[in-house]
Each structure stands twice: as C-alpha cells, then as structure tokens.
C-alpha cells in the first residue's frame, strides 16, 4: 500500500517533468505551465495554513514580499539565485512570524479580515516605497536565474524551457516538504487544531504556537513562489499582489478540496489551465469561476478530489440495484 502510493507519486512527478518537453515549441504554453506551478505552490501553501482552521485572504502579500525581496537581493546585492530564493521565503516567513502572534489570536472570519487588510497594507507599502520598489511602475530588468552548472553541463536557466524545469524542481521539492509536514505528527497537530482548539489544548498542544508555525510555513512557500514569479517575468508591479488574486488562490483550494493534500494541487491546475484554453472568454473569467465553484461545492462539498469516490459510490449502488432486479 505504502509502496503503491509512493510509486503513484513518482509517476506523477515523472509525467510533470515530461510536460515541458511536449510543450517546448510553444512559448505561450510553457509560460502557462510555469504560472500553473506558481499557483500550485501558492495554493498548497494556503492549505498548510488553512489546515489549522485559519483561512488567510492575504497570501499575495507574502508572495509579494518574497518576489520583491528576491528581485532586490539579486539586483542590488547581486546575490545568486540559490541564495535569493530561500531568502525570499525566509523574508515572507519572518513577516508572518511577527504579525502571526497577534493575528492568530483572532479566529475564523476575523482572521480572514485582518489578513485581507494586511494584504492591502503590503500592496500600499510596495507602491509607496519608491526608492526600493519603483512605486506603481514597479521594477524592470530583474535578472533571471542565469547559468547554472548541472551535472557538469552549463545550462542557461534564463531561457523559458530550462526555466520551466527550474520552477518544476523548486515546486516539487517544496511540495515534498509540505507533504512530509502533512503526513507527520506536525500535520496531525495542525489538523487537530482545525477541528477543536480546546481539545487540542487539552492534550498538550501549544495551540497559539502551532497556529503561528503553520502560518509561517504557508508564508515561506508563498515567498518562494514569489521569487519564482519575479525571475520568470523579470518585471514586478505592486498591484499584482492585491486582494483579488488572493481570493482566486482560495477558490483553487476550496474547489480542489482542502481536506486532502492533492486537492488544492488539482484545483490550482484545473482552474489555471481552463481559462487559458478559453482565452476569448477572458472577460467572463469571474463568472466562469463562480459558476464552476458553485457546481463543485453543490455537488461535491469535499471538493474535486472527492469526485472519483462519488462516482464510485454511484456505480456501486447502480450495480447493486441491477443485481437486486435480476
């Protein structure tokens, strides 16, 4: 069983590594692929925080902190990417740790509200701090990854095909870490807090600390996603990191199914790819999202991941009914 599951994951990862090769002709589809990875990473980060019952509406703030940190570290201090990327995560995490202690003391809707306002505060800071962030015009000419020697080969990761592999590698490593957290006692502690904070406290879990911890983990990977974004587009505008995309990430998570690990990943992939396939309908994107979300939540309250189970149960009842009729 365990071997089977690990084998399944391995196949998924191998297939993911083949996708850029299939798409290598189209610059456009490769960029969709990279955006997809960034959204997957953001959605999984959001889930890590949400597992303790805290729904953050400000994930874009932490992505923004990561993106600008990474870009400025490489531009002003000429840091290499392998230092800038984790530092982007750490910067977002440090901010999360500072605001976390007051923030996690409010729960539910109130947590959503304070994170929402925090997102706006960060966007305004990024807009106003002109000397560092370039204000509303943003920063341009951010260096991309550059040339890295892999297994003796010097590969220029600034080109889009190598970059998509770089992004895939970072995403897979991040997801593996998030997966291990989810499967270990840490994930169990997070989810137990999500179910009943008093009971969690009564069995000796330091609820406040673990809530801040899960918030920090989520924000770390949001910062990493920001770094991937910055060096992919090589331009950054503060307005990107606003409330609206934060809500989209939340929709990906809920539509995919926040209870399972794979759910938010699926939600992010499907809801990133579908609008790109129907590009002529881009104006109607919010309507399509709402309709999609409504249908998913109405017919499968546990999210898209529960679809195979629902279909399976339907077939089982049908078969039983047929057997009874015979």
């Amino acid at each position, binding site marked *: 069983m365990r071997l089977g599951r690990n084998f399944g994951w391995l196949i998924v990862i191998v297939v993911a590594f083949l996708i850029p090769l299939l798409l290598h002709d189209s610059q456009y589809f490769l960029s969709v692929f990279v955006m997809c990875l960034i959204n997957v990473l953001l959605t999984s980060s959001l889930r890590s925080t949400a597992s303790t019952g805290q729904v953050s509406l400000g994930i874009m703030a932490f992505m923004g902190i990561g993106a600008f940190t990474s870009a400025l570290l490489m531009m002003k201090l000429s840091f290499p990417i392998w230092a800038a990327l984790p530092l982007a995560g750490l910067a977002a995490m440090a901010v999360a740790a500072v605001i976390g202690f007051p923030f996690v003391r409010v729960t539910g809707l109130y947590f959503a509200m304070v994170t929402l306002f925090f997102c706006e505060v960060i966007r305004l800071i990024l807009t106003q701090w002109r000397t560092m962030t370039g204000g509303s015009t943003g920063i341009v000419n951010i260096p991309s990854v550059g040339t890295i020697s892999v297994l003796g080969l010097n590969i220029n990761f600034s080109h889009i095909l190598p970059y998509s592999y770089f992004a895939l590698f970072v995403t897979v490593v991040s997801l593996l*870490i998030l997966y291990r957290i989810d499967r*270990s006692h840490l994930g169990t502690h997070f989810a137990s807090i999500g179910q009943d904070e008093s*009971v969690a*406290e009564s*069995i000796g879990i*330091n609820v406040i600390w673990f809530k801040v911890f899960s918030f920090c983990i989520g924000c770390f990977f949001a910062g990493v996603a920001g770094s991937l974004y910055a060096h992919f587009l090589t331009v950054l505008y503060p307005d990107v990191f606003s409330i609206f995309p934060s809500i989209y990430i939340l929709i990906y998570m809920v539509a995919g199914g926040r209870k399972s690990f794979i759910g938010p990943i699926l939600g992010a992939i499907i809801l990133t790819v579908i609008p790109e396939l129907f590009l002529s309908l881009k104006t109607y994107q919010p309507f399509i999202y709402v309709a999609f979300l409504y249908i998913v939540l109405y017919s499968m309250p546990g999210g898209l991941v529960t679809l195979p189970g629902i279909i399976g149960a339907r077939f089982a009842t049908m078969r039983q009914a047929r057997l009874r009729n015979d």
Partner: protein
Amino acid sequence: MIETRELTKYFGGLCAINNLNLKVNPGEILGLIGPNGTGKTTAFNLLTGFIRPTSGRILFEGRDITDKSAHARVKLGLARTFQLVRSFPDFTIKRNMVAASFLHPKIGFWEAIFYTPQYRRKEKQIAEETGTILQFLGLDSLENEIVRNLPHGYQIMVGIAIALATKPKLLLLDEPLAGLSPAEVSRALEIIRELRRRGTTIMLIEHNMAAVMNVCDRLVVLNFGTEIANGSPDDVSHNKDVIQAYLGVRKNAA
C-alpha cells in the same frame, strides 16, 4: 496532588467560584458534585488552565501552576476531558492517539521532514504505547475507524484514550457517564477504578448519583460556587445542606 488556595472566579459581577480551598490527595477518586450551573466545570477550567482565576492560587504537586498555560499543565501530568467527552471526530482513532502522544518524546522538525530512521522508531514506539491504551479501553479493534462514525459510548472512550495518551498523573473527567447505557456505565466505572489502581488520581464531575456514590472515595459538594460539604459519600449523602441544595428532600425521610 492538586490544591487550590482561596480560588475565586468572577464572570463580570457573577461569582462563579467563591473562595474555594480544594485538595485532591494522590491516589484517590474525588467526586465534584452540585446542582447545575454551580461552578463545577468552571472549577475544572480553572484547575486545567483554560480560564484564569480572579484571585487565589493553584498548586500541583507543591508547585504553583496558577500562571501556567493549559498545554503546559498537560506536560506536568494534568489531563482532562470535556463535557460530552470530545475528541477529534474527523480523525481515525489511531490519528487521535498520534495527535495526543507526540508531545512526550522530543522530536525535531527536520527528523519529521526527512522521515529519518529515528523518527520511524519513535512512531513505532508511540504506536505500541497507544496500542496498550486502546486495548485497555477496548478500542484496539477499531483503531482505523473514523471517530465520527462510532457509537456514542465508543466516542467517549476515545476522548478518555487521548487524555490517557498524555500520561496524566491527575485526570479530570467532566461528566463522562452522560448518555451511557447502564452496561456501559458499569464498564466505565471499572475502567476508572482500574486507572486508579495503576496510579492515576482521578477527579470526577458527574450527575449519576448512584455511580458517584459507588466509585468515589470522597465527595466535594458545590452550591453557587461555594463548597458546602466535603467527606465520604456516606457522610455527604446524610448532610442536611447537601440534601436541601442538591439531593432533594425525601418525603418519607423526615
């Protein structure tokens, strides 16, 4: 074991606990009884750190724990269950136990991420320890069931199981017998006695008087937040104040 000194708690102008001097001796089963709304659960919440007293001190094994948080008290050996004995309904019994037992062996973050042999060994050790608890409570064959799907009697046992997984010296049970069938009640009382025999001190809030009289060594009776009686079940049941406040006057007893 645990001791309170002039413990007082006000909710606004309402005095929930008034000048309570409670003492639980090691190895006893102490029943805390009294009419509804009299502050029994408030007393439990104060003892376990879920709420802070307005004044007074709480001592556990001679140490002042008044300012310690609830989770820190658990580590000292002070565990509790809640009314309707709650656990984590979306988890399997096994995962409930994992949630409750990973605080005792110190485990590092990176150990968990890299799934080191050391981590696996600890996982195995915890599975063995919790297995014994589940066996003791008759839950071992159900460990992969989601708690939500179990009958009420079993859910109560899961609540007790996660409290036991924290390895308590003193266990506070808040109405553990509510909603149990007579057969389940006698089974639960057996478990409480067996726990005491194994060295756990027990404090019990319960309205099932027959059970309380049967299992407790000593009773403390509260009325409007004040202690009105303290003694053996026999003494207490003949105490005039208690009869008036709680047990009710029997017509033919006069």
